[in-house]
């Protein structure tokens, strides 16, 4: 049986893993390669790295870090942030990343999805989206609007419409990161995740709000997510990946228990 994936997310600023609430109050959590190796040992199913400062500093994703991670973990990992062209995608994949995540870039230039999927395969291209709850039924009937550039800019795009459009353009997977839930550790935004997961035929990864194992149980059971991103709850040491997987297993969610 296909298992549900648990994906630690490492936000990287100035070569260090950091964690904040809604992109603010960032705390230093350590070296990305060391943390990646630790989570790999603990049995995570995949990893994702966001080079948070790359875009603001107008530099491409840190390829040296991608290569260092690829040298020490034997599971798939995705990188995002600082991806602004086909050559950035190519370099990240050739350095050993399994997937590249595009977010603001895809809104500004949707063709990058089609081009990337054609050149490297849909499975390599992940759409990251940062929807926020809005009450604008005319332009955002799903109740969620896509924001870009670290939640700073509203786009007028309806989250579900954008997900369907991106699926049509060829993305292999969608990471739905709720702006409202991000960093709160009060649970995933189930309604948002479910709206997207039920209406596309590609895997959907829930992101934002994971605070305890029950939050994951609920996003898998009630929102039909294929995978879930976790961050603060493991970065702080409050929970470990084996603990989370045991809780999910006990709740009847299929997870990988041997590694």
């Amino acid at each position, binding site marked *: *049986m*296909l*298992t*549900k*994936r648990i994906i630690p997310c490492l936000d990287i600023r100035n070569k260090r893993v950091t964690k904040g609430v809604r992109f603010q109050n960032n705390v230093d959590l350590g070296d990305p390669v060391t943390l990646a190796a630790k989570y*790999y040992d603990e*049995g995570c*199913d995949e990893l994702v790295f966001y080079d948070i400062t790359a875009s603001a500093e107008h530099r491409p994703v840190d390829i040296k870090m991608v290569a260092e991670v*690829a*040298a020490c973990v*034997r*599971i*798939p990992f995705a990188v995002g942030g600082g991806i602004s062209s086909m050559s950035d995608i190519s370099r990240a*994949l*050739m*350095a*050993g990343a*399994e997937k590249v995540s595009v977010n603001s870039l895809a809104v500004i230039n949707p063709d990058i999805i089609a081009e990337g999927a054609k050149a*490297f*395969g*849909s*499975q*390599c291209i992940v759409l990251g989206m940062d929807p926020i709850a809005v009450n604008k039924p005319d332009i955002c009937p799903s109740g969620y609007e896509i924001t870009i550039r670290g939640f700073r800019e509203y786009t007028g795009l309806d989250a579900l419409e954008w997900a369907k459009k991106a699926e049509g353009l060829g993305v*292999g*997977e969608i990471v739905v990161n709720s702006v409202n839930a991000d960093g709160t550790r009060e649970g995933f935004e189930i309604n948002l995740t479910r709206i997207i997961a039920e209406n596309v*035929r*590609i*895997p959907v990864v829930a992101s934002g709000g994971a605070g305890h194992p029950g939050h994951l149980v609920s996003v898998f059971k009630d929102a*039909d997510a*294929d*995978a879930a991103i976790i961050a603060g709850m493991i970065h702080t040491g409050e929970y470990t990946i084996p603990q989370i997987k045991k809780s999910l297993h006990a709740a009847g969610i299929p997870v*990988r228990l*041997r*590694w």
Partner: protein
Amino acid sequence: MIAIIDYKAGNQTSVRLALESLSASAEITDRKDTILSADRVIFPGVGAAGSAMRRISESGLIETIHEVINRGIPFLGICLGSQIVLERSEEDGGTDCIGLVAGTVKRFRPSGGKDKIPHMGWNSVELLRVHPVFAGIENNSEFYFVHSYYPVPENTDCVLGRTNYSDIEFASVIASGNLVATQFHPEKSGRIGLHVLENFCRWSGKC
């Protein structure tokens, strides 16, 4: 030396890194002489069947791969590499493949269910018999898959492992003589996947 066949479409980096972590020497190559003088050969794989077949046909590697099999050199196909060893694939409007194993490659077609395409993530492999490349691997261990098409060999004797997705039991491991082909990615399947690669690195090609 292990020759990793280069067809300019797949990303061979992770296969090379996994072999390096096992201290196996590997070379990514599309040269016939290098492939035929290798101790073992890997056809890695992401990408589409059409472009991969076009590429290896243009570089004359179809005959070379037949020669690898005829000479008894241990051969491992991964993902797309477990599909192009069959005779024909539905992908890209129908693609003639290498034909080392009788059968075809079909696309998953979820029948109104909730299953997603591609089949992406960790799924279990039921091993149907013992094989040197799977020595020490616990039955029903999970491996990392990412694919939209699956192989359907004509002769079920060559099915070494099977996996269930979208109400289909498909051949996730094919083994026939000196050929082993996995629909999953051993190089991305953690320590259990590395164990499979390590077994392959030691395998004589005989069962």
